[in-house]
């Protein structure tokens, strides 16, 4: 009854490989030592400094503003793109699909360079707006793809049924189609949010004066050699990202049920 040790060892190795660097960062954020290395005792002072650092607060604000607006834009545009892709099948739509799909596979640096050249050509000033537009270009694909997946599973005879029961075309869309595909839109939105939150490459090309986001700030402060607060900052980012992923994982299943209880309350 001797089981092979190999699978277990592989698992441990993988976990160590992926999470040791993260663990080092998190532990480091509580280590009372200026340059890492030895453990010099527990401290929260980096978190304290972080909160008081105006530059970081500004960067955080920029990041959140951009992530919020690009997510919102992508949820609307991506859902519309998915509808168009699903409803009308033609040559042109194949082209459309490739356009939507390409940001998922194109190297990010290419996206960054081309966007930079484009904004240069049209004479736009780099800043928050250009970063926002850049993020929309690639986040859009993720929303469109998740919604398209959900739409492909959608049974359009439900719309016929709703209209048969007296709902106008718009009411049927609002009361039947949207609630059924909502988990897809929300999952796509959360994905877009995390992607926008930690994007570096595209942002780096498109940021101008006063439009530093957190990833850009982290990069530049490492170059300046001040890493003390970065561990704490990274630990926070890590937690936030994990939270978003967990939320997005659970909403998909939860949403179907919450819709039901909401309706039940309305009737009861």
């Amino acid at each position, binding site marked *: 009854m001797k089981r092979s040790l190999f699978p277990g060892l592989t698992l441990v190795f993988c976990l160590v490989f992926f999470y040791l660097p993260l663990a080092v960062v998190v532990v480091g954020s509580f280590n009372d030592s200026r340059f890492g290395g030895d453990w010099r005792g527990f401290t929260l002072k980096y978190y304290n400094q972080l909160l008081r650092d105006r530059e970081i607060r500004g960067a955080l604000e920029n990041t959140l503003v951009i992530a919020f607006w690009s997510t919102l834009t992508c949820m609307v545009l991506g859902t519309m793109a998915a509808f168009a892709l699903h409803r009308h099948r033609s040559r042109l739509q194949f082209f459309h699909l490739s356009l939507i799909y390409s940001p998922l596979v194109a190297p990010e640096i290419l996206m960054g360079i081309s966007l930079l050249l484009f904004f240069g050509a049209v004479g736009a000033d780099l800043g928050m707006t250009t970063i926002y537009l850049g993020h929309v270009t690639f986040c859009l694909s993720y929303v469109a793809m998740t919604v398209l997946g959900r739409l492909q599973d959608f049974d359009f005879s439900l719309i016929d*049924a709703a209209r048969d029961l007296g709902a106008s075309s718009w009411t049927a869309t609002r009361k039947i189609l949207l609630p059924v595909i909502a988990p897809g839109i929300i999952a796509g939105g959360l994905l877009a949010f995390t992607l926008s939150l930690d994007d570096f490459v595209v942002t780096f090309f498109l940021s101008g004066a006063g439009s530093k986001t957190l990833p850009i700030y982290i990069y530049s402060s490492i170059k300046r050699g001040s890493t003390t607060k970065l561990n704490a900052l990274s630990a926070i980012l890590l937690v936030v990202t994990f939270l978003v992923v967990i939320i997005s994982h659970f909403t998909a299943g939860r949403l179907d049920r919450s819709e039901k209880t909401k309706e039940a309350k309305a009737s009861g």
Partner: protein
Amino acid sequence: MTHFLEFAGIKHYFGAVKAVDGVSLTVKQGEVFSLLGPSGCGKTTLLRICAGFQHPQEGRVILNGVDITELPPEKRKVNTVFQNYALFPHLDVFENIAFGLRIAKRSAVDVRQEVERMLDLTDMTEHARKRVVELSGGQKQRVAIARALVNRPQVLLLDEPLAALDLKLRQRMLVQLDSLHDEVGITFLYVTHDQGEAMSISDTIAVMNRGKVEQTGSPAEIYEAPRSSFVAAFIGDTNFFDGVVKEIDGDYSLVAIEGLGAVRVFNDKQLKVGGAVHLSLRPEKIHLTVAEPPAESSRNISRGEVEEIIYLGSATKYWVRVGDYRLAVNRVHRRFGLDEKPIRWKDLVWLSWHSDDGYMLERYSEADEELLSLPDTETETEPLAVDGDSHE
């Protein structure tokens, strides 16, 4: 009111496919009207035209004296039970049924009362708060019916509502559907490809074939007096013969059938000596005996050998070889085992049938033959896949 729902010259083509090709029908108030036909004959398309999901390229739909052809689905006083039920997955049973009432902005008290009445009528009260995915096929079907009926439509459209259920459940639901119809008294327009289903539930049946209505009538009319051989073959089991008129004697004529002999048949249509005749003879109209029946001028008599026997419980089905033909014969047991000797395989038997029981028809086309999936009737008359009298 005789003309409650009327289809007038409806045409709808999908490119080259003539889905509905000039259909005119009238449905009476309160009746169960079935559209019956093989797959692809345009039943669903006609139903969708009635519901408003499809705009006919030609023709009008008139409901209760009002032309509804141009109305969108939500403005029509008809409701549909969809083939796949199309229940809303994000709502529970109660909310599915309440959907139409909520759209109509009925008061909360009204909604509750009406939905509870439908739940009660369909025996779904205990499942009111279940999610759609938690329901069985039969339960889903009942929710679909309740959801449609709660709006008190003038016509209820049902598109093969039982097709997704297994045989036992189908029979039970059919009975329930029938008693439900008696209870609510709403006009049903019922689409099915199952002739047994149509026969047992309908007041009127329209048999459709390739976009056209072949015949409209009561189940008995359609069965006893099919207007085309397509109808005869689609509704139940039958034997077909091809013959030539040899002699005309008043209402009857003597028809020579190659490989069988001469038979006397009632003239269902105008005939000329030498004209071709296609004849249908239902298996239960043939009388099978061991002893030679007394000769009568009104009866056709022939002798054959039993080739196959299938015991059906209430009846026995025989295939008897007579000349070039293999005739299907149904025989109900009455005095089985008493004064009748059982008939065995390879026994020689007598077949007799009344001259009025043969029925003259148009021969169906080659294309129809495919739809009916009949064997070549020139040489043999085999049992058909569709079975006329064994629907339970």
